[in-house]
């Protein structure tokens, strides 16, 4: 693998090393993304997870300030889970705006079987009211969850995404680094597929109805 001993890569400390491996693997001479249509993802346009991930078990607080048991409340629904924050200017609102635009165009018999869950990684600024106002810009059906920092960190760990980290921007401002992809759980309560930043409305419009109607029809 480009002259780097594999054993050393694998003993490295996680994400950064893996990122390097990923970059090396992905930018090779015959570059085609694994998330391309058809052959690698059973026709879906998201990115296949090599190991399906179980739907995480966590309870946070929704925008009406009631406890929300994620597994229980989303059981039986195609569930889209995204961690982000409302002060995020770039990727989060684009994901949400694209999803909202697609949800508006899909028929009700599809959308009523989908739950979109946005978990803030910035509970300090994203109160239930702030979250609700932000989500209503996109789609009032979108579910917003918050909680204590500890509970949100635990939810990210249970989900298996990198735990968000606060970044100081000076003058009292800060940003939060967080997972850039939307995880999609089918009704088998597994995520087989994720949607990275860069996914398009046409990709969502292609995949969501199929995921709702057929469940996981991948590998």
């Amino acid at each position, binding site marked *: 693998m480009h002259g780097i001993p594999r054993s050393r890569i694998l003993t490295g400390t996680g*994400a950064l090393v893996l990122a390097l491996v990923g970059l090396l693997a992905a930018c090779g001479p015959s570059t085609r993304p694994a998330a391309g249509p058809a052959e690698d993802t059973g026709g879906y346009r998201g990115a296949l997870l090599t190991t399906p991930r179980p739907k995480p078990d966590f309870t946070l607080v929704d925008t009406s300030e009631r406890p929300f048991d994620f597994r229980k409340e989303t059981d039986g629904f195609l569930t889209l889970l995204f961690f982000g924050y409302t002060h995020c200017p770039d990727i989060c609102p684009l994901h949400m705006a694209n999803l909202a635009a697609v949800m508006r165009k899909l028929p009700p018999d599809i959308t009523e079987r989908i739950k979109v869950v946005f978990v803030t990684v910035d509970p300090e600024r994203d109160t239930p009211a702030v979250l609700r106002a932000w989500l209503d810009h996109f789609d009032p059906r979108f579910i917003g969850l918050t909680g204590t920092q500890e509970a949100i960190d635990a939810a990210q760990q249970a989900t298996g995404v990198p735990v968000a980290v606060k970044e100081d921007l000076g003058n009292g401002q800060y940003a939060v680094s967080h997972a850039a992809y939307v995880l999609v759980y089918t009704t088998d309560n597994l995520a087989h597929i994720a949607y990275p930043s860069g996914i398009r409305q046409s990709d969502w419009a292609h995949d969501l109805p199929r995921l709702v109607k057929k469940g996981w029809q991948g590998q």
Partner: protein
Amino acid sequence: MKSSVYRVPRRLTGLSGMLLVLLLASACGGTRHGAVTGEPTPTPTAAVSAATRVGALVIRDVFTPAPASPDTAAVYFTVQNTGDGDDALLTAATDIADEVQLHRTVMEGGAMKMQPVPRIAVPAHGEARLARGGLHVMLLGLRRPLREGDRFELRLTFERAGAVTVTVPVRAATAAPGAATAPPTPAMGH
């Protein structure tokens, strides 16, 4: 590509494996999912900002997506350098925000991170593209709400060309015209 995926040892399970696949999907610029794209937005003529010139620089495709946040917004544009000398964007300023910074969104191990950058190079006979998922001007502490159709002024200061004010139209939240490095996809059925 496929063989690269399967070369990954089985020990790389769980998050690691997931990260790998995601990286495969997003690591390379210019691949289908490599560039961050909203939709190719039809551009009503009224929303097109005319190119602004200062010195050897041409600034075009300036816009901000209508922010859902009352506090923050990002501004995107392309700066083309028609001259023989390298230039760089040093600062941006506007009356509508408490603080303006130059940022880059970077991916690190499946997480995205916003990094302040001290300057944005505009090489001679080249261009700087501020686009979704990459470089942007970050407005922090908005002093008034921005809605689609609004406009505001942004003052850009370049190392060589000096300062210039551009008008920034607020466009749809899904707008991403400057990010079209990926091939266009078929439009949705409408």
